[in-house]
């Protein structure tokens, strides 16, 4: 297979998807209903990424004490809900995660 052709086509496909809406951004007006649904996009997409990352870091469901991602994630959830401060959540949960992983 021609690798450079593959790279060019992958780049074209990727860029087209990302840029398609931007290209005609001033001509497109999204339906108000869709705009209201998009308010939920960031929290939902991010959650769809982090939940499997902490619950199944090795591909299988592992919500146990043996899983430092699960423990670190729980700490992050608690701090995040309590303090509502992103940086603080990152700092404390990462400290807990690495300490817990190191102690294991």
């Amino acid at each position, binding site marked *: *297979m021609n*690798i450079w*052709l*593959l*790279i*060019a086509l*992958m*780049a074209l*496909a*990727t*860029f087209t*998807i*990302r*840029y398609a809406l*931007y*290209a005609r*951004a*001033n001509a*497109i007006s*999204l339906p108000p209903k*869709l705009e*209201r*649904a*998009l*308010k*939920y*996009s*960031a*929290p*939902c*997409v*991010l*959650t*769809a*990424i*982090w*939940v*499997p*990352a*902490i*619950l*199944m870091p090795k*591909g299988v469901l592992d919500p146990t004490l043996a899983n430092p*991602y699960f423990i*670190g*994630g729980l700490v*992050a*959830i608690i701090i*995040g*809900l309590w303090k*509502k*401060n*992103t*940086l*603080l*959540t*990152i700092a404390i949960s*990462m400290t807990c*995660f690495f300490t817990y*992983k190191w102690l294991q």
Partner: protein
Amino acid sequence: MQTLSLINSKSFSNIKQFNQGVADSIPLVLGGVPFGVIFGTLAMNAGLDVWQTIGMSSIVFAGSAQFVAVGMLAAGTSLGFVIGATIIINLRHLIYAASMLPHVKHLPQKWRVPLGFLLIDEVFAATYPRYLNYPQSNNSHWHYLGVGVSFYLSWNIATIVGIFFGANIEGIGEWGLDFAMSATFIGMVMPHLINKPMIAGVLTSAVLAVVTYSLPHKIGLVIASLGGMTVGYLLEEWQNTINKNNNSTDKNTGKDTEKNLEKKAEQAS
């Protein structure tokens, strides 16, 4: 209220926006670096040469799709299938583009082209809150650019490190640096959980993401995101309908309280 509006109308220089973008990208860059290194190593093992590996990271710039492509190449999959997988994997970027749309429509194409190119998970995650927190700010695209450039450079440097030193830092995937991404995303999502539709949407997304995890090409991510958004939206609609019905039964009292509130707000300011 006054402090809130003060914060929101605060203006920043372009450089300051850019630098803040770079700063906001740091935890996600930290989480992304091991994947870049692993990609560099894997691509070389799959038969790409040095320039092709660098080319894929710098021209395609799509982490998940790059991993899948390299895996498919190693397995001898044909070109059409790799492109098809790339399209499916990247479909979620349409959701990001649609969310960013109102914020980029005033920009000239020379901005929209690079901003579109840089629109990956982490960039959207790090810059979208900036637009929500500073709706009055008219130069947040500099923040977007700062996040994007920072991530682009780190992804490519990590790839190069993987190409040349991959064997020396073989265990980097086991270091747990990827937890930085989860910690950041959790830290970003938790402050949003302040009303029922949002909580229900996020919980739906969480359950669907686990249930659909084994589906190929990150289709599960798209299903979970759309599912969560739909539940959040429908619940909000439903709440609005109930509120409307309640208002129509005692319209006058409702209007009075609204007026009173407005007066109070005026007096307060």
